């Protein structure tokens, strides 16, 4: 009997085009939009050479050391872009280039070195740091020569100014930091929460006062819990398959990095699907009759929760954890996002396990509360079941 009910629940649910749209098509569209918008985002913060126009005048041509210094920073080192990309031009040309925004600054030897810019900024600061350094090194030589009376004035016996690199990059996480993945993770969390719409349908169809179908099904000589469980199971399977498809799309087509623990990621989807679904059954059980209100509450909740998990602005997730940690732990969307983030970035599984455990706990509580709200309902009469929801 259970398999029979289950099979038909599955068929009924799969014919609901509206919920199918919101739970699978919409997330796919949104993830594609994320992709188009973010595809260039990481390039935008990566370093590009600061463009400078050097005024080719008398003072510059006579200053050999400065010319050498310029050459040394405009050569490509290792993999990295050179610090500066230099153009040697006349004074007028330099002004035009700056005005048109083709260079970040003008270096003018007058005869003291001067920097002309349009505004403060990263590129401009890099040029300035270079120029400062040039003058500072001369200052250091001056001081040292002053303090060593016994050395010849040309400083030949001095140890030369070192140009060492003392810094070594030490990656912190397992994978490279990439803020944009948070958006995709939060999107997956949103899709999971949209599973609530399946929950809404499942409850609507076993409660006699919520739909005509529900009234009919209640008349059937099948235990209500059996129908309910069959419905929940069917919805859970559908939602899990949908999330997996979304995941596949993100990984294979959009190439979103998820790390490489496929099993754990699927587990997150499975648990996330259950959490979203049971949230839906709970809301649907608590809010009686008014379908519009139920949908409103669910949309509001899922927008709020996924927003707090970083769907609209990724750093928001971090701000919430820092400011109100409690809020992060009771928000299913954040738990899903965080589980995926932990898999991607951390080398340990503690945080992942904590997230999954909390999600399961919430699902259990939601399910129990749903059970308490829908069980043992008896109706003497049902005055108004609107055919047309």
């Amino acid at each position, binding site marked *: 009997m259970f398999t029979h009910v289950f099979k038909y629940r599955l068929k009924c649910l799969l014919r609901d085009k*509206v919920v199918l749209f*919101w739970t699978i098509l*919409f997330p796919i*569209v*949104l993830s594609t*939009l*994320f992709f*188009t*918008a973010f*595809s*260039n985002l990481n390039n*935008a*913060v990566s*370093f590009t050479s600061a463009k400078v126009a050097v005024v080719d005048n008398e003072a510059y041509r006579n200053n050999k050391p400065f010319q050498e210094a310029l050459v040394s920073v405009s050569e490509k080192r290792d*993999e990295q872009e050179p*610090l500066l990309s230099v153009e040697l031009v006349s004074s007028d040309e330099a002004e035009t280039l*700056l*005005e048109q925004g083709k260079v970040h600054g003008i270096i003018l030897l007058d005869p003291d070195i*001067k920097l*002309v810019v349009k*505004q*403060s900024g*990263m590129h*401009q*600061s*890099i040029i*300035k*740091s270079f120029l*400062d*350094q040039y*003058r*500072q*090194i001369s200052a*250091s030589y001056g*001081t*040292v020569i002053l*303090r*060593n009376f016994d050395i010849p004035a040309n400083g030949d016996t001095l*140890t030369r*100014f*070192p*140009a*060492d*690199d*003392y*810094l*070594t*990059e*030490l*990656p*912190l*996480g397992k994978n490279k*930091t990439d*803020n944009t993945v948070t958006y995709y993770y939060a999107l997956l969390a949103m899709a999971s929460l949209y599973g609530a719409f399946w929950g809404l349908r499942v409850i609507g169809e076993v409660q006699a006062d919520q739909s005509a179908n529900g009234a009919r099904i209640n008349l059937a000589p099948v235990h209500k819990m059996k129908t309910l469980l069959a419905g929940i199971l069917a919805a859970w399977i559908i939602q899990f398959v949908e999330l997996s498809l979304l995941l596949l799309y993100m990984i294979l087509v959009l190439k979103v990095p998820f790390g490489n623990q496929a099993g754990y990621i699927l587990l997150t989807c499975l648990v996330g699907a259950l959490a979203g679904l049971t949230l839906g059954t709970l809301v649907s059980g608590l809010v009686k009759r008014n379908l519009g209100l139920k949908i409103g509450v669910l949309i509001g909740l899922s927008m709020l929760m996924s927003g707090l998990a970083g769907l609209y602005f*990724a*750093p928001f*997730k*971090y701000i919430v954890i820092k400011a109100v940690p409690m809020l992060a732990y009771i928000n299913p969307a954040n738990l899903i996002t965080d589980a995926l983030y932990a898999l991607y*970035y*951390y080398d340990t599984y503690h945080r992942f396990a904590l997230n999954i455990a909390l999600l399961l706990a919430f699902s259990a509580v939601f399910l129990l509360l749903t059970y308490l709200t829908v069980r043992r309902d008896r109706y003497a009469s049902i005055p108004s079941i609107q055919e047309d929801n």
Partner: protein
Amino acid sequence: MPVFRAYRRIIKKNLSQLLIYLAVFIGLAASLLSSGAATPADTVFSDAKVKLAFVDEADSSILTEGLKAYLERYANMVDVKHDRTSLQDALFFEDVDYILRIPSGFTEDFMAGRPIELEKTSRPASFSSVYLDMNINKFLNTARFYLANIPGISQQELVAQVIDDLSVETAVEIRSKVEDINVGDNITSFFNYMSYVLLSLLILGIGTFMMVFNQKDLRSRTLCSSVPLRQQNMQILWGNLIYAVVCWMVMMILGFVMYGRTMLAKPVMLMALNAFVFTLVALSISFMVGSTLNSRNALSAVTNVVSLGMCFTCGVFVPQFMLGEKVLAFAQIFPVYWYVRFNNEIINLGSIALETFKPFLGYMGMQLGIGVAILAVALVIIKQKRQTWEA
């Protein structure tokens, strides 16, 4: 004006749904405002600052304190707990750009002239990484230079000397043309985001109305009423127009509430004009959507896909300069692209004269052109629909 009255009642009935979008926008706008008001244009050069977490694993010494004090010029020190997870999170969510770790024994090794290594964590090959590397190395190299050439120099003297040398600065001249106050990116974002809300409000509102009126039976009934078709259409048109203008006005009032007199600045007034042009285009999009769709469920789906789709690809949510070239080339078929481009560029225009304003007329023209094209398509669709009914 029976049709017009019906229009008002339909909008009233759906007000709560429309208000959701408005509330979302107000939330966004408020968070924009809190992120900094208009600032005067740069008159003095200031060095860029990187968000730095300075982790001193050794007990601080005069040398490391000196380094830290020196770095304040190039970095804002961020207070993060020094455990691994906190640092990881902070870096990932861009609360810090750069983590510098001073290993224990650093000062002794450095003073003794032994090779040293500092561990740093940053986003590889980012600006902040290159910039801070450069300035940290500068400090250490200068210190090394003194150590090698002045044997027996004390730590205190060394740090004082290095800091003294490194305070030498290049003269910087700022060529800024904008004399009046910089209205700021803030209000540009406000206007850019506005396109999302206007689109959503119009598609949803007008779509709902058109759908009700185009129901086959209802349409047949109104067609045989005593009100002539021409007048019916005029009333529908007026209803749509007034609704659109009201939406635009709500946005402008919101702008005044948030930005006050800045709204009266010349470039901002032009942005308002641009927003009005965009409203008309959004109206024609809504008209087309409303006349093609038959179900409310489909309407909310289309509203979201159309408004989010355009706004993502055209640089509303992510600024245009951060989008890829291909995306931008594609986005030119959408009116939102031209609308956003207008706003982004007008704010940087030094002086507004007829000559400099020419391209902006082009941007508005592009929007209107797209709007007319969409309207034409909508009219064809409506005609075909009626013909299939009549057949």
